[in-house]
């Protein structure tokens, strides 16, 4: 899945599967990734990581600490003791979240453990700050079971206004998110489920509009039944998509109620089991080809291999179909191949093709919105509000088959999403602070704009050193 503001190659190890012969982009991407990787290690060493904490109050002498710390601070503590929600007003809790991972499924690297997950979490924290104005603390934890993970996060929740779960293996991520969301009085988000699904739904809504289709009428095939697509399916159903006209396909073929792994799924992945029981009307069975026949939409979030979806799959679909090939770094089908097979609209997870379905279009703004509303949760209505606002945002520059979604270069959309999220939280009665739409918008613009000023100011003052030149020994051999 797309998940960064930088080219996706930087955040995903390329697939070592066979490269498609007609795919120079794949080779380019591999080579580029290796170069970026070396540089990233070099810079990480040079800067000693990517984030640090910075005071937000004036400190002119040690005497100030009588206010910021003891004895003055005791009164602040007592105020919060009397009303714990005042922590959102008297401390940085209102704008601070934890990025929590157990390191069980980091990028495309698999189970690499909490220490190795830290640089990724630091990168995410940087994105949260730069894009959303959110103070995010990386917290990779060593836990052995979902129960232990949940109780650990629950124990740390008093410090935070929200929890961003990151890089947790499917299907355990579903149970962890569900149970934490139920227990904690603050929003809990798992980007691999919600962020990707929301961005996908936003792109799809616009693709449907462009091709004069309605979500209530289309037949849709979801290829891949991991974290993202299971949530995409749930969101589509919430938007009125007919479950009968929705078909999921995974490595074992069409997911249907009589597939012989259903009993195992009931035990190990009840989320997928439930989808299997409710979708695929008419009881289609077989492979991807059997699924896509006559379908209007194919949403692929599966394995990075350009042969996963073939031109004949696209040709078997309804006229002018919509094809999203979201695997990173290599999409399930190259956009030009999909288009020449008849696809009317194509999206990928990559920034070097048009229509990038990118988590970063969603998560900073969602957190800006829920934090500004001091929301207690992020129900699907909030996720859908963000998706719809993102879709609306693309129309400002004009909706075309090449401009389905705003790019990261259209940041004016993000405060609008944050405001839509805040409005929805207020409407649902889960906001601790009920601002008006304009207040949410103004606040989001200010807070989301501030980090850029901060970064510039630090650079001007030389407090952040400039980028060192790239590895001279390698670049300029003598």
């Amino acid at each position, binding site marked *: 899945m797309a998940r960064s503001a930088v080219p996706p190659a930087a955040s995903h190890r390329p697939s070592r599967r066979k490269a498609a012969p007609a795919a120079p982009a794949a080779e380019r991407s591999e080579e580029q990734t290796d170069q970026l990787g070396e540089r990233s290690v070099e810079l990480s060493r040079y800067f000693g990581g990517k984030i640090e904490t910075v005071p937000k109050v004036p400190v002119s002498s040690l005497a100030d600490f009588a206010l910021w710390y003891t004895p003055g601070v005791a009164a602040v503590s007592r105020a919060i003791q009397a009303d714990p929600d005042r922590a959102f007003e008297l401390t940085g809790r209102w704008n601070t979240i934890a990025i929590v991972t157990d390191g069980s499924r980091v990028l495309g690297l698999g189970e690499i453990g909490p220490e190795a997950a830290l640089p990724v979490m630091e990168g995410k924290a940087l994105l949260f700050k730069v894009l959303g104005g959110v103070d995010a603390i990386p917290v990779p934890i060593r836990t052995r079971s979902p129960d232990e993970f949940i109780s650990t996060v629950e124990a740390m929740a008093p410090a935070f206004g929200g929890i961003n779960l990151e890089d947790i293996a499917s299907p355990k991520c579903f149970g962890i998110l569900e149970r934490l969301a139920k227990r904690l009085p603050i929003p809990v988000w798992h980007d691999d489920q919600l962020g990707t699904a929301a961005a996908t739904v936003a792109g799809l809504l616009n693709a449907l509009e462009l091709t004069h289709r309605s979500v209530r009428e289309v037949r849709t095939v979801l290829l891949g039944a991991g974290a993202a697509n299971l949530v995409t399916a749930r969101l589509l159903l919430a938007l009125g998509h007919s479950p009968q006209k929705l078909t999921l396909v995974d490595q074992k073929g069409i997911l249907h109620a009589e597939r*012989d792994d*259903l009993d*195992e799924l009931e035990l190990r992945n009840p989320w997928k089991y439930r989808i299997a029981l409710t979708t695929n009307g008419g009881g289609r069975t077989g492979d991807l080809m059997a699924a896509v026949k006559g379908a209007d939409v194919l949403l692929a979030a599966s394995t990075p291999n350009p042969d996963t979806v073939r031109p004949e799959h696209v040709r078997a679909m309804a006229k002018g179909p919509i094809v999203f090939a979201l695997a990173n770094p290599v999409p399930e089908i190259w956009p030009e191949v999909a288009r020449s097979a008849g696809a009317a609209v194509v999206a990928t997870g990559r920034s070097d093709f048009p229509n990038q379905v990118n988590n970063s279009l969603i998560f900073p703004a969602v957190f800006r919105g829920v934090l500004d509303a001091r929301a207690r949760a992020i129900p699907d209505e909030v996720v859908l509000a963000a998706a719809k606002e993102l879709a609306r945002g693309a129309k400002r520059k004009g909706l075309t088959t090449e401009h389905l979604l705003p790019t990261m270069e259209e940041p004016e959309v993000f405060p609008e999403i944050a405001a839509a999220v805040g409005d929805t939280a207020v409407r649902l009665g889960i906001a601790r602070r009920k601002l008006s739409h304009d207040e949410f918008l103004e606040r989001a613009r200010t807070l989301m704009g501030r980090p850029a000023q901060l970064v510039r100011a630090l650079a001007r003052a030389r407090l952040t050193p400039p980028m060192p030149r790239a590895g001279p020994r390698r670049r300029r051999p003598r």
Partner: protein
Amino acid sequence: MSANKGGAGRTSAPTDQSTVPIRLRPAKESDLPALVPLLLRLKRLNEEFDPLLKVREDAEQQARQILKSDIPNPKSVVLVAEGTGADRDKVVGFVRANVRERPFYAPVDEGVILDIYLLPLYRRRGVGEHVLAETSAALKAKGAGIVTAEFPAQNEIASRFYTKRGFRPIIAIQARSL
């Protein structure tokens, strides 16, 4: 030891036959092609609970043979669940139970539910309840004074299902590899 109950729903509503989406009838030998795969699904599900329930290579032949001998056996109850409406005549599940004699305990005749399996779409909505009631009645008609159910110890769904309906553990089977 074989046995148990594959996913028959978690309902506690009393059986109202008009809403139960299945119909039960005694199995015939001609049902074998439909029943064998269902029995195998159940045994494969059991394997998920414990490696000591690893399904044998020849499980399919075994399934056919056991069903074939139980269907006409007066000491056995084999019922077939068929769908209703559009699924009429489609075999969607089954139950297999035996009446056996307890040499030391009274009541002497024990009706043992060995296998219950229903396809996922035919679970809940009172289906399990209905199957259990019909099977118990058939076992009672064959003289059983007690009904028992065998299933993997780790199958919590089955355990909850029976406990809710007044069953309690009376014998434990523990195992280890040799």
